[in-house]
């Protein structure tokens, strides 16, 4: 007898926010074996757990180590559930290009933002760290992204963000994308000065800002050819 759907969802949620990867794997396998909806299990189990972890992070009860281990559990569960998503339940996602500026190899902050945005339902295209500035523009065009997210911890590389925005302008496609920035030396004031659309000072905040920007539809419609 398979366990109730509700029990399994609760296990998936608990597994993620209580940092229990083994439980996430076990519950995900049970969902598949019982034939329950994988998409439902992801959203109302794993993602719900990650959101709960995000709330604890906001409250400064969880920090980077906790969020990373929560995400390990989430991704372990996702790996099992994803192949079982029925195509008709899959939803079109907002596409986001994310990376750390050229010259900077610090990527913890970027990784946290990626994890939280992933959990929030964005489709993430992660360029990694030390990303050549032109790659942000190229990738965004290639995948038809709505958002470009740039991160840096260093004062020597922060001006690269302004350069990327200039590149978009030069190509006449600035309005095709929303641009978000963040990282140690970055401030709201700096974001405004370089003409970015959004600034976030932590990973959960980044999700809120990204949702607002995506809702404004800063997107590919009307892109210059």
């Amino acid at each position: 007898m398979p366990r109730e759907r509700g029990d399994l969802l609760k296990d998936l949620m608990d597994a993620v926010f209580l940092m229990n990867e083994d439980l996430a794997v076990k519950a995900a396998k049970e969902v598949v074996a019982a034939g329950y909806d994988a998409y439902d299990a992801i959203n109302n189990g794993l993602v719900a757990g990650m959101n709960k972890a995000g709330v604890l992070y906001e409250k400064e009860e969880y920090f980077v180590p906790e969020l990373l281990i929560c995400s390990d559990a989430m991704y372990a569960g996702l790996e099992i559930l994803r192949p079982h998503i029925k195509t008709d339940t899959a939803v079109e996602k907002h596409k986001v290009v994310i990376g750390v500026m050229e010259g900077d190899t610090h990527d913890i902050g970027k990784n946290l933002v990626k994890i939280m945005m992933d959990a929030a339902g964005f489709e993430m295209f992660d360029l990694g760290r030390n990303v050549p500035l032109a790659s942000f523009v190229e990738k965004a065009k290639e995948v038809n992204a709505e958002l470009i997210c740039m991160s840096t911890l260093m004062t020597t590389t922060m001006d690269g963000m302004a350069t990327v925005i200039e590149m978009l302008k030069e190509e006449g496609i600035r309005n095709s994308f929303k641009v978000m920035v963040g990282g140690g030396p970055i401030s709201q004031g700096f974001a405004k000065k370089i003409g970015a659309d959004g600034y976030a000072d932590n990973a959960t905040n980044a999700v809120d800002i990204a949702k607002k920007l995506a809702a404004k539809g800063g997107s590919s419609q009307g892109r210059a050819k």
Partner: protein
Amino acid sequence: MNTITIPADTQTPLERVLCYLKGEKPQRVACFPLILNHAARVLGVSIGKYNRDGKIMGKSHVAAFRRYGSDAILIFSTTSTLAEAMGTKMEFFEEDAPQISEPFIKERSDLKKLKVPDFSRDGRLPVYMEATEIAVREVGSEVCVTTVLAGPLTTAAALFPVDQLTRDLIKNKAWVHELMEICTQACMKFIEEILKRKSLPIIVEPIASGSLISPVHFKEFVAPYLKRLSDHVHKTGGGMPAVLHICGKTTPNWKAMLEAEFDMWSLDNVDLGQAKATAGHRVVLVGNVTPANLLKNTPEEIDAEAKVICEKMGDLKGFILGSGCEVPINTPPENVDALISAARKYGRFDN
């Protein structure tokens, strides 16, 4: 900003800093802009050269002191320098500080191969030592020369990828403590080498920032090890103070930091007035003009920001004006001047 007459300094930078250590009132508040790699800009050499040549590093700091007249010299390259000497590989850039390219520990079992480095030979430690000697020899009678070393957790995070290390704070506690033990021993040796050269060790522990790890982990993995370092300075330093710098947010960790018994804290993204209320009875506080503002703002804005900080500190006792973290490499010199002038203007004890 020119309506106030700026009183001339009557003490040398060294005399001023010694007042703090003796608990006497200096003529004015001292100023520590944390000039690190920026010193290369003053001498007009590339950041790459500065980081690889002890003579150039030493001379850069002497030149920066001559140019700005700050109250401390801070010999520094990266927070990974100790780890580099223990086997971590770095990537070097012409116009930026080196960054980690390959941490030494790939498998946890590599910990067995980890040793306290030889300071006469390993990595760029000889560069640091030579730079320290040059600065002490040339200007040590006028200014407090310090050498910056990364603390145990920051060194550990340069030896083992930081995302894995932070996970292991929860998943492999005993292993992390083993790693911390070796890093602490390496830090203690570093402190001895710095003290031997008549420089003041400054311990920096950015990975222990409240932006990364929890107060619970700070108490378990940071404070006890830092305490051993401050004890070491107190025991072997001949009266030198134990100095700690932690970047970013630190407010939730101040109580644990107090227990580590440092004499001076350099703080970054915090309310320094609040820090004074918590720790001012025990600790001299250094801070905390926003580093990115030094790079991007005008001298007038720097002056205004420094003024607000001075006002927050109230009676100014036990306060040193400074930057919250490293003065950005490409900071315009006039902004460093503005910061030091602000100490002369707003850091007065005579009115």
